[in-house]
């Protein structure tokens, strides 16, 4: 086996040194009746070239070369090549958690920079070293708010990503946390009157997403006022991190739970991604996940360490703030490099291109279909309602190697034939025009079908 660095003679010599007759001696502690005396039924050992071929075939079966209008919590942005050049360095790729700071300063300093940039972008005072993803970050943030307030229930906006809401429901169920869902208004924003009614003296926090699942930017200040008036916290989830380049961050939030996938992390069929929790300094001791802090060594030299570990499971065991152990270090490094590349000016310009592409597309779609929720500002996603079933539109687009918007029937049946479309800097005008033509084609077909029916009606 090519990964194993031992010759048969080495093994013999080692067994001899140990004083064992054969390798079986070393497995004697396992009761004989359980020992496996056959080969595992897994595919035979493959050559590297065969492995490459096998996965290339799977890749070709997986939408290779398709353009996409899908967003909904996973965004297709350009990934500058140096991200992979740098994260492929073995010293980053094959290092463990930096528990030994003297030989982990590379990872530690890069996480410190990551925490800093997340603070700058979110307007928060502290950020952790990352958690699994945006959905679990939101759930952990809500549980954190419950610890901080000593309250138990949660008001959650229906405009939060449906799968994030499902994850929260799973987490909350056994924490004894009742969830109240707050509807959205005709502008796809949180219905403030309903929000007011949903909050009780036991409401630990209000959870919203902004830009929300429909791409609409919430009125964070108004929501914060209502939450704070009742002594509840405001937790804001951010699924599209690029929005932070041009959209004012939710500074009124007490906790921000974000997904940093848009910052240079491949779509990768849903993971691994990079959740982050950011908050106010005063709440840091209740924040879950690893944290890197600055300190000095014995000679007064600046260095970095994992810190405030007394919150964590390996010290506190069942009294920890969370059971979380790993972070997403390598993915956070991707995000870190991405943020460094675009920086103060580039991130704004990038976000602006996203805004422009989505605005153009929404305008074009609007000529042949109904673009919902036009009253409030939005970032790079919008909802198009058609007479035709969006699956039919998408079926036609697939022939052009284009994946259309996400049909919303499954998550929001009341919206009928609606789909969520996303445009990023990667979406070309030509692709938008092709998609619009396909929607127009459908509109024309339903129109002529209706006219034919009307004619029939008249002639009857």
């Amino acid at each position, binding site marked *: 086996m090519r990964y194993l660095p031992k010759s048969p003679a080495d093994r013999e010599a080692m067994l001899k040194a140990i004083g064992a007759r054969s390798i079986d001696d070393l497995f004697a502690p396992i009761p004989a009746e359980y020992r496996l005396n056959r080969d595992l039924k897994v595919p035979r050992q493959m050559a590297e070239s065969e492995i490459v071929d096998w996965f290339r075939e799977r890749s070709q079966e997986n939408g290779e070369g398709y353009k996409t209008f899908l967003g909904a919590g996973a965004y297709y942005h350009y990934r500058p090549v140096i991200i992979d050049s740098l994260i492929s360095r073995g010293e980053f790729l094959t290092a463990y958690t930096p528990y030994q700071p003297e030989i982990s300063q590379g990872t530690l300093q890069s996480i410190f920079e990551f925490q800093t940039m997340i603070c700058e972008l979110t307007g928060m005072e502290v950020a952790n070293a990352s958690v699994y993803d945006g959905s679990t970050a939101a759930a952990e943030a809500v549980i954190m708010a419950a610890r901080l307030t000593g309250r138990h229930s949660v008001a959650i906006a229906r405009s939060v990503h449906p799968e994030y809401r499902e994850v929260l429901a*799973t987490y909350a169920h056994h924490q004894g946390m009742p969830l109240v869902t707050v509807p959205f208004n005709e502008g796809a924003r949180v219905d403030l009157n309903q929000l007011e009614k949903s909050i009780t003296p036991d409401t630990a926090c209000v959870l919203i997403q902004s830009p929300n699942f429909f791409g609409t930017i919430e009125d964070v200040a108004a929501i914060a006022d209502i939450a704070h008036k009742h002594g509840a916290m405001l937790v804001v989830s951010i699924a599209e991190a690029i929005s932070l380049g041009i*959209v004012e961050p939710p500074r009124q939030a007490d906790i921000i739970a974000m997904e940093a996938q848009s910052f240079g992390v491949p779509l990768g069929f849903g993971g691994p991604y990079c959740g982050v929790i950011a908050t106010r300094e005063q709440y840091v001791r209740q924040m879950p996940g690893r944290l890197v802090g600055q300190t000095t060594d014995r000679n007064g030299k600046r260095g970095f360490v994992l810190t405030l570990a007394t919150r964590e499971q390996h010290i506190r065991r069942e009294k920890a703030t969370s059971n979380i*152990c790993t972070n997403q270090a390598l993915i956070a490094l991707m995000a870190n490099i991405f943020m460094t590349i675009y920086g103060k000016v580039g991130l704004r310009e990038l976000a602006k291109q996203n805004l422009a592409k989505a605005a153009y597309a929404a305008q074009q779609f609007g000529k042949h279909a109904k673009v919902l929720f036009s009253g409030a500002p939005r970032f790079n996603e919008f909802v198009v309602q058609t007479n035709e079933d969006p699956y039919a539109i998408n079926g036609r687009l697939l022939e052009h190697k284009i994946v259309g918007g996400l049909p919303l029937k499954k998550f929001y049946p009341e919206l009928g034939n609606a789909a969520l479309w996303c445009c990023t800097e990667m979406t070309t005008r030509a692709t938008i025009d092709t998609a619009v033509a396909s929607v127009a084609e459908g509109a024309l077909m339903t129109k002529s079908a209706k006219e034919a029916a009307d004619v029939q009606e008249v002639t009857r």
Partner: protein
Amino acid sequence: MKPVIRKATQHVNQNEGLIFEKSSPGKAAWKLPPLDVPEVDTAKLLGSSERKDLGNMPEVSEIEIIRHFTRLSTWNYAIDLGMYPLGSCTMKYNPRVNEVVSRFDGLANGHPYQPEKISQGALGILKTLSECLIEITGMDAITLQPAAGAHGELTGLLMVRAYHESKGAPRKKILIPDSAHGTNPATAAMVGYAVENLKSDARGMVDVAALASQMNEEVAALMLTNPNTLGVFEQQIHKIADIMHAKGGLLYMDGANMNALVGKVRPGDFGVDLMHLNLHKTFSTPHGGGGPGSGPVAIKKILEPFLPTPVVITRPDGALGFEYNRPQSVGRVRAFYGNFGMFVRALAYTLANGPDGLRQTTEDAVLNANYIRKGLEGVYDLPYSTPTMHEVVFSDKVQAKKGVKTMDIAKRLIDYGFHPYTTAFPLIVPGALMIEPTESESKEEMDLFIDAMKSIAQEVEEDPQMVLAAPHTTRVSRLDETAAARKPVLRWKPAQ
């Protein structure tokens, strides 16, 4: 005595400040293509939601970014540099073909919501990996969704709870041996269970008599790591399973140490009802400085109705798809389908090994641990003489007499060119030195390690102060962790 350090030599390495300290206005590492749609008036579109300023975000050029991160990288120890004997962490070689195949366009750029018709490749990977892991563990079904080991534990205990609820009551307690990882009790608490400690016996195994007396109808499950954190196989495992099952409880196995078992014995065959795997340990996906992990949970048939949604199924026409309609499911544990990129890597590892390679891997891992045990026995105290599987736990009892603790020895090991072993864990061994070489180490590398450990033991006798001040050769000496925690500085701020 002058120590003989054969593995490492000091060499110049570059200093590097924080990226913010290199920033200055007008530098850029980015370039966007010309906009092919009309420009927009951002103030008009966004109104008061428009952001005007990005604060202290850096402005630097591409070459500076390359040098910045390359310099930082050289300050890290890594598996690619040498042995990483962290007990319970299974730091093995991360094959490079895994990295290549996971970056193929259709896999790296596949959107989780793209139609199933054009997702058959990804679904095929999920299915093939699932089948391999089910066979390796001897279980009946699996979910790949959990994002890491602790997340797998959470998912597993949610299923335990749902199972008991379906029988009438969720029960109240989880039994956890005192040698367990900290994630086990933390997870039990998150799922609303009380934790009851289970003592180890003199051989470092579960005290079966104690288990029998503690087991009752209030106990939902026992969370057992096997081999346990002493690297000891629970020889009475069948009795343990019987005791649990007799009173309707479940046996959960923490699969952190599965590297000792693959291809040699299957947990499903010795009575385990559910277990998680750590793909970033046993299946070679890179640790990446702390993550991403991936923690699939394999289960017996009785738990299948409770699997998190969605589940991969084969449709009548033979196409693969996701099934969401599962009324007894514990729900969703994360968005989308899990850390797919890690599934690609774990499967590439499994295919590179095949049945013979997987078995040889396990045998070599156990051989290596026993070789180190033999090499250091008598030099360091061995608190449990029970046979060793994939890792061996010594204690600092001998060296502590000179005032040198496990952490000090670990720090001195850095000067010898090695990453430290795991210190002060498991908790049942005071001053533990927990060593797991994995199969990835050659005899030469282990001989160097054994020599280094012997040399340090001698240094402790002759010059304990020198060991207490270690490491002596790193960029930074021991860091003030107390100050870091007392007045946390968690971000850079510009000088006022």
